């Protein structure tokens, strides 16, 4: 994957396949510590502890685990290439949390890319799922929540085009403000 935001789109697919209806994404950019952290957390059905090591193994033959494993092993590979690592925590019945660390200025660190595109794509095709996206940059942060938007919309679906366009515009503005002054 050429962008971390594509890895994120892919990892969230695992949460969707695990029947999650609330998915949290946290992106933390800490330049002082030369660290980029991505956390994807869901309330899906989780992974049994004895299966955790197997899901990141791209050579596991069981078709069911391989579907989940391929994306996770690619994400782990991307983090390790930039002197980081990826960790999976999961509790069956409660959910799963994936945390990936990257050395921020590592030349092999894949760029974050079109994160707004990823969020909008997820909302478009999964209007019934709630997403919380928190982005921290140098101590500043913003939080985006589909629950908040749905409360405002009432009976209007979140994936109507005018609403999606508004979300896209709003997220772009939030990101610009977040990075503002530093870029």
């Amino acid at each position, binding site marked *: *994957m050429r962008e971390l935001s*594509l890895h994120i*789109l*892919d990892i969230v*697919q695992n949460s*969707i*396949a695990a029947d999650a209806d609330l998915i949290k994404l946290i992106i933390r950019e800490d330049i002082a510590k030369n660290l980029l952290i991505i956390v994807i957390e869901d309330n899906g059905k989780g992974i049994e502890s004895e299966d955790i090591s197997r899901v990141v193994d791209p050579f596991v033959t069981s078709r069911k685990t391989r*579907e989940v494993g*391929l*994306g996770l092993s*690619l994400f782990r590979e991307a983090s390790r290439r930039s002197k980081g690592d990826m960790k999976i925590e999961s509790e069956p019945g409660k959910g799963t949390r994936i945390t990936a660390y990257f050395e921020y200025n590592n030349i092999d660190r894949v760029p974050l890319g*079109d994160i707004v*595109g*990823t969020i909008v*794509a997820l909302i*478009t*095709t*999964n209007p019934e799922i709630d997403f919380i996206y928190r982005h921290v940059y140098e101590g500043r942060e913003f*939080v*985006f*929540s589909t629950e*908040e*938007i749905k409360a*405002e*919309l*009432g*009976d*209007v679906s979140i*994936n*109507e*085009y*005018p*609403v*999606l*366009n*508004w979300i896209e515009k*709003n997220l772009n*503005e*939030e990101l610009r403000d977040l990075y503002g002054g530093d870029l």
Partner: protein
Amino acid sequence: MKSLEELRELRSKVQKDLEMRSNSERPKIIIGMGTCGIAAGARKILKAVMKEIDKRGLDVIVTQTGCIGMCEKEPLLDVKMPGKDRVTYGNLTPADVKMIIVEHVINGNVVEDLAIARFDEGGN
């Protein structure tokens, strides 16, 4: 979140549009969002789909599906018109998306050059 007032205005506008919408079954576009689909450009294809639908004011449901085991043909997109077979298109570019929407979704003709599979879903 900023400008929630803007959202309130949008809401009443969308509600008016919804009232005018017919109750008949809507066409469906399904994007393959498995790992290799995403790596092959599924997000770009989805973006192109949204742009065309929005530009032409079409009433279409856009949804996603996971891995269907056709890696070498990614990115993939299916069109399901009401009462017709579900058609899978593969090896897509954003330009193909425009053609599929005009030819298949609007005019009702399958784009044979791009179609790679057809499923009878009993008219659903």
